[in-house]
Each structure stands twice: as structure tokens, then as C-alpha cells.
């Protein structure tokens, strides 16, 4: 008799017709029974290749083994040796390209749902307050962290655990960076982020909001007047790209950053109860097909439009977005227009966008390009074409070496910049390679923290 195959446990999801009308979390996560069944699928390989697929090398085999033994605290401890925020990463990591892509089980059947298991452990930890609280022996060193996004939070955590006095400077009125202003509530509930930030405060970390470093304090001032010993720059790549086509400045055209900030950070969906309007129309075209584009399209869908389109110059297979998110977007009614670029946005009589001239380019089996031109009605166009380096810090720190495109240069081994004692990571650097994910940013924050601690030690 063939051995009974246990299929990959799927988590409960909110049904598309309900979730399209609200911002509640779409993926409900595992129950304990589901988590145990799923953990049971893990082969506990002698050489676990899943770990090599993880950017921060979580001991996946071990934490899943702990789940099987119902030792969830053990599982949490295992994960947090490598990744401090399992509740966040379990939700937003592109596991199908990382750990789950390498899972041996995935060759013949579905890989183990490592992401959902990670989230299960992280959520248990949040519910039971398992985070690190033990008082730390202070070491009389001060670190300034610029930016409270994934890179900054991870860096702050490691430094605080080593006894460094940590002050995090955040430009916005609320800490969390992209986790707060960018990733929508239905994919990452803000409560999850708040809890992690509270835990960080519990470790003695101070977070100063409304502080745009480079403006209120220069980097030099941090090191002199404000007597910080080390600085970490994790300011993010906040500067939106636009395609530079005719009509870019029309009303109704905005960046994904603006759109998501208006909705996610400023609660624009609750206007006028909240003061910030979103200002979108009924036919929304999102240009681009990365995760930010999908987030924008799905957010737009929840604001009650007639149509939401994703217009992408390449094909589905080439999209850098998580496949699960594309599926969710489809289920929610987002329509995808592949291999298409807008060439001009056209205005109505009052300066609002009314649609775009597009070119769709398909290649036939002989390699011949077949272009077709069409007009897409859209009264809102959202550009989600990626970001460039934000120039605020580099403009006010002339000694800081940046590359041609404005990213801060760092040394490969410890992420120190051209200025001794100043380190950098996350999307304001190229240290994450081509990956601009939360987990990669966190991993650079931790690498920098290690470099900073060594630097502090060497200076004593």
C-alpha cells in the first residue's frame, strides 16, 4: 500500500468578495492543529537545503522540529537567533523564491509551508510575550539609528541587546518605515508591527519620531554635539521613479509611495474622519508589477472603484511580485495587462488624466515583434516603478561616498561607509544586492550591528 501523502496545509483566507470591501488581513494563519500537521510534513533532512535559501539562514529544520514537539518557545528562540521579527517576515517574505524554493519536498509535491509556520511561531510569541526582556548590562556607548524601517529596527535590536544605548530617529510621525507607510494592513496588520516596536522599546531603545536626519541634525552633529559613538543609516530608498512620459504631471497621476502612504499611514480610506484624502477615481491603472504594484492595486480595489488594472511591460513569469499576491489580486478582481507600456497619458479639459495610450508588444513563435496600440481609460494612474536613493542625507554629508546613482557606498565586510563610525544598510545602499525585501534589509541591519560592535570594541 502506498504511503499516505499529507498535502500542504493551506491557511484559511478571507473570501475575495468580503475582503475586497475591507482592510482585514487576508491570510488568517495556521491553527495549532494545522501547524502541527504541516510541521509533520518536514522530512528533517540530514542536510537541510531550505536553510541555504534563507537570506538570514534561520535554522528551519530545528524550529520545525520544535513545533512538532509543541515546544513553540523553543521554535521562537531558534528563529530569533537569525530573524528578530518572525511575525513580520512570516507574512511578507517571498518564501517561494527563498526557503520554500529549496525545500526537498517541493521536488515531488508542495514544499513545506515554512513561511506560515514561521508566522505561527511569531504570532504565538506575540500573544505570550516571549520576546527578550531581560535587563541588559549597559556598556556606555551610544548609537544613532537613522530610519525605523526593517534595517534600522534589526540594527537597533542587536545593538540594544549588546548593551549599547540606542536612539532611533524616524522622519515620519510613526515608526516602522515601509512596514507602516507602505505594506498594506491586509497583508501586514499594523498591530503586529507596533508590538515588535514596543518590544524594542522594552529593551531600552528610544525612538524619536519627526526627526529628519540631514535636516534637524546632520550626521556630523550626531557624532559631535549629540555625542553618538556610531551611526547607522537605514533611511530607505524613498524617492519614486516615474517614466518621464508626456502627461506624468497630470492630476490623478501619483506614485505608489504617495498612494500607499495616503491610505496606509494616513488612513485615507477613512476620509473625512481622518483628514487626508486619497483622491482616486473609478478606473485605476497601476504601472509595474512588483510587490508594491500589487499592494497598490489591491489597496485601490478596496476603495470601491469600477476597474483596477496592472499594466506591466513584461510577462507574468517575469514579474518580481510574490505569486501568492498576484493570485490574491486576481481573486479580488484586479485585471492584468501584460507586455504593455503606457506611452502617453492624456488629459481631459481640466488637467486630469483621462486615459493612456499604450503599446502592447508580443513576440510570435518566429521571434517577430507584433506591436498593437490601444487606449486604456483611466482616471487614476499609479506608478509603481521602483525607487531611487533619497538624497537628503548625502546632500548634507559631503564626505559620505555615494555611487553614481546616489546610493551610499559601504564596505563589504562590515557595512561601514566612507566615514569611520558611520554604517549603512537597507535600501539606501546596494548592500542587499538586487533584493529590496524586508528580510534582506533586516539582514544588512544585523550585519551592520555586528560591524558597529566590533568598531566600538576596537576603539576602546
Amino acid at each position, binding site marked *: 500500500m502506498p504511503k499516505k501523502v499529507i498535502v500542504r496545509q493551506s491557511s484559511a483566507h478571507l473570501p475575495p468578495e468580503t475582503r475586497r470591501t475591507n482592510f482585514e488581513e487576508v491570510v488568517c494563519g495556521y491553527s495549532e492543529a494545522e501547524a502541527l500537521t504541516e510541521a509533520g510534513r518536514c522530512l528533517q533532512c540530514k542536510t537541510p537545503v531550505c536553510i541555504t535559501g534563507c537570506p538570514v539562514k534561520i535554522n528551519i529544520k530545528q524550529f520545525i522540529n520544535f513545533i512538532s514537539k509543541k515546544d513553540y518557545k523553543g521554535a521562537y528562540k531558534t528563529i530569533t537567533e537569525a530573524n528578530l521579527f518572525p511575525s513580520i517576515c512570516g507574512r511578507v517574505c517571498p518564501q517561494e523564491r527563498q526557503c520554500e524554493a529549496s525545500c526537498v519536498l517541493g521536488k515531488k509535491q508542495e514544499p513545506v509551508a515554512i513561511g506560515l509556520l514561521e508566522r505561527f511561531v511569531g504570532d504565538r510569541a506575540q500573544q505570550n510575550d516571549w520576546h527578550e526582556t531581560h535587563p541588559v548590562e549597559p556598556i556606555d556607548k551610544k548609537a544613532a539609528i537613522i530610519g525605523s524601517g526593517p534595517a534600522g529596527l534589526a540594527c537597533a535590536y542587536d545593538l540594544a541587546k549588546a548593551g549599547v544605548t540606542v536612539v532611533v530617529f524616524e522622519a515620519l510621525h510613526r515608526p516602522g518605515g515601509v512596514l507602516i507607510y507602505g505594506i498594506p494592513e491586509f497583508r501586514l496588520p499594523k498591530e503586529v508591527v507596533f508590538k515588535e516596536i514596543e518590544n524594542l522599546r522594552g529593551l531600552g531603545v528610544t525612538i524619536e519620531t519627526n526627526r529628519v536626519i540631514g*535636516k534637524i541634525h546632520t550626521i556630523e552633529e550626531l557624532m559631535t554635539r549629540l555625542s553618538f559613538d556610531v551611526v547607522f543609516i537605514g533611511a530607505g530608498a524613498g524617492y519614486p521613479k516615474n517614466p518621464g512620459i508626456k502627461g506624468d504631471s497630470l492630476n490623478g497621476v501619483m506614485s505608489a509611495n504617495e498612494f500607499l502612504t495616503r491610505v496606509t499611514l494616513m488612513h485615507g480610506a477613512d476620509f473625512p474622519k481622518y483628514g487626508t484624502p486619497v483622491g482616486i477615481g473609478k478606473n485605476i491603472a497601476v504601472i509595474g508589477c512588483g510587490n508594491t504594484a500589487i499592494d497598490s492595486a489591491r489597496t485601490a480595489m478596496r476603495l470601491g472603484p469600477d476597474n483596477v488594472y496592472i499594466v506591466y511591460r513584461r510577462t507574468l513569469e517575469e514579474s518580481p511580485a510574490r505569486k501568492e499576491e498576484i493570485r490574491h489580486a486576481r481573486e479580488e478582481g484586479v485585471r492584468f495587462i501584460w507586455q504593455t507600456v503606457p506611452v502617453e497619458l492624456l488629459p481631459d479639459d*481640466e488637467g486630469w488624466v483621462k486615459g493612456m495610450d499604450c503599446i502592447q508588444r508580443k513576440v510570435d513563435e518566429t521571434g517577430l515583434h507584433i506591436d498593437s496600440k490601444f487606449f486604456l481609460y483611466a482616471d487614476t494612474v499609479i506608478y509603481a516603478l521602483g525607487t531611487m536613493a533619497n538624497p537628503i542625507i548625502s546632500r548634507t554629508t559631503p564626505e559620505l561616498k555615494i555611487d553614481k546613482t546616489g546610493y551610499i557606498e559601504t564596505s563589504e565586510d562590515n557595512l561601514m561607509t566612507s566615514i569611520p563610525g558611520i554604517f549603512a544598510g537597507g535600501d539606501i545602499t546596494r548592500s542587499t544586492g538586487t533584493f529590496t525585501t524586508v528580510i534582506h534589509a533586516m539582514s544588512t541591519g544585523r550585519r551592520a550591528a555586528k560591524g558597529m560592535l566590533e568598531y566600538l570594541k576596537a576603539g576602546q
Partner: protein
Amino acid sequence: MFEIVRIENFSPSTFLWEVRAPEIAHAARPGQFVIVRCDEKAERIPLTIADFDVVSGTVTVVIQAAGKSTFDMKAYKALDQISDVAGPLGEPSEIENFGTVVLVGGGLGVAPVFPILRALKLKGCRTISIIGFRSKSLVFWEGRFREYSDETIIVTDDGTYGEKGLVTQPLKQIITEREINRVIAIGPLVMMKAAAEVTRPAGVRTIVSVNPIMVDGTGMCGSCRVSLGGEVKFACIDGPDMDGHLVNFDELLIRQKRFSKYEKKSLELYEKKCQKK
């Protein structure tokens, strides 16, 4: 939290807030702005800094109650607290001894001209101020302007105070008659556009301070984009000061209306609520 230490009403709809923010006051330079968010539900509103004082640790902003958010601001009293003040933001104005500078302020724009005037005067510039208001009852800071200006010209739309007319009239006269090295004009978009047109034929460098709709104020969202000589700039990090001869004012005037539908709706609801009370 930030404390409003002083409120001064200029008219039924315009008022001044002096807010305690020592670190911002310490870092602020003329021409920069702050973003204010009054409470958990409020918008982030960019306001150009009208004054700053390192000794008292305060920054001053001037506000016109025009929409729901700014009407809400009018309800605050001295010693009340507001949630957030972020700044200073934007690039400071260029302050040098340029020679003779004409400073033009219109309406509420008069306020942010003041720190620039003071700094230029202290650098040794000869300063001529032209400040315009709709009517006599709206005039403010005349004394402060006279203190730092070699000449002060006041105009009102209705002629109830100073000369009758628009700021562009004396500006045109001065530009034609004298050697002027620089003009700084701050006020409503139409006024700045008109001032730039007056100085364009003479080729006098003219700096305007644009204040488009913003969200974060740090270059992240691009809401405040301005076409400057055909290039895209962000007012929050490349401005707010910009070359008035290169700014595409017509585009800005349209972009200013991006949310007018919502602002109107919000204001109507607000007024209804006020009537009920």
C-alpha cells in the same frame, strides 16, 4: 507633543502659532518649512517657517483657515499641545550680500518673507520690501518689515491702507527705474507668477517659494512635484525656493486642485457639524 506657546490672530481667518520646538528652532534657516500634524486623525500640513528663535526655542508659522484642517487648527488655544512638528525641511534660502534685493510678500506669504529679509539685511543687502494685503484689517508685521527694510511699500487691493493695487505695480516701477540684483517673491501662486513675469524681461533673478500639496515632505512620495525648466523637481527637497522664471506655474495651479473636491466635501461636513453645535 509640541506646545503652542502663543497664538496671534491677524484677522478672523488668519493667525499665527508660535510652537515650542527647540531642536527645530536650532536647526532652522530662512526659507525652510515644517510639517505639522495636530492629532491622530489630522493631515500632515506643510507650513513655511515665518520665524524661529533659538533663545526661546520656538518656531513660528502663519496659517489661514481655508479648509477643514486649518479650521480645526483655529480652534486651538495657547498652551494646547499638538502631536507632531517635523522639520526644518527643504533647502534654506540663499543668503548672501547680493546688493539690492526686493522682497515681495502677498497675503500670508508676507510671513515667510520676513526671516529671509532679516537674514539678507544682516548680510548687508540693501532691502526693499513690498508687502500686499487685501485690506487694511489684514495687515500684519508692518513694524518688523520696516525694521529690516531700507524701504517698505505697503499695498492693499482695496486701497484702505498704503497704495491701492497689487504688489506687481510697485515691483514693476522699481525694476524699471533701478538696478536690482535679486527679487524674492512669496505669496499665492498667481502673485508669484505675476511677479516672475514682471522681472523676466529685465532678467532679474527671481526666487519664489512654492508650497504644493505634500504628504511626507522628505522626497518619498512625489506629491509636490514641480516642473522647473522642463525638469521634475520636488518642492520638499529641491525647494521650496525655486527660480521663478523656470517654474511651470500653470501646471502648479492645476495640481493645487488635486483634492479640491474632497476638501470641499470635508469642509461642508465640518460646517454642518458646527451649525449643530
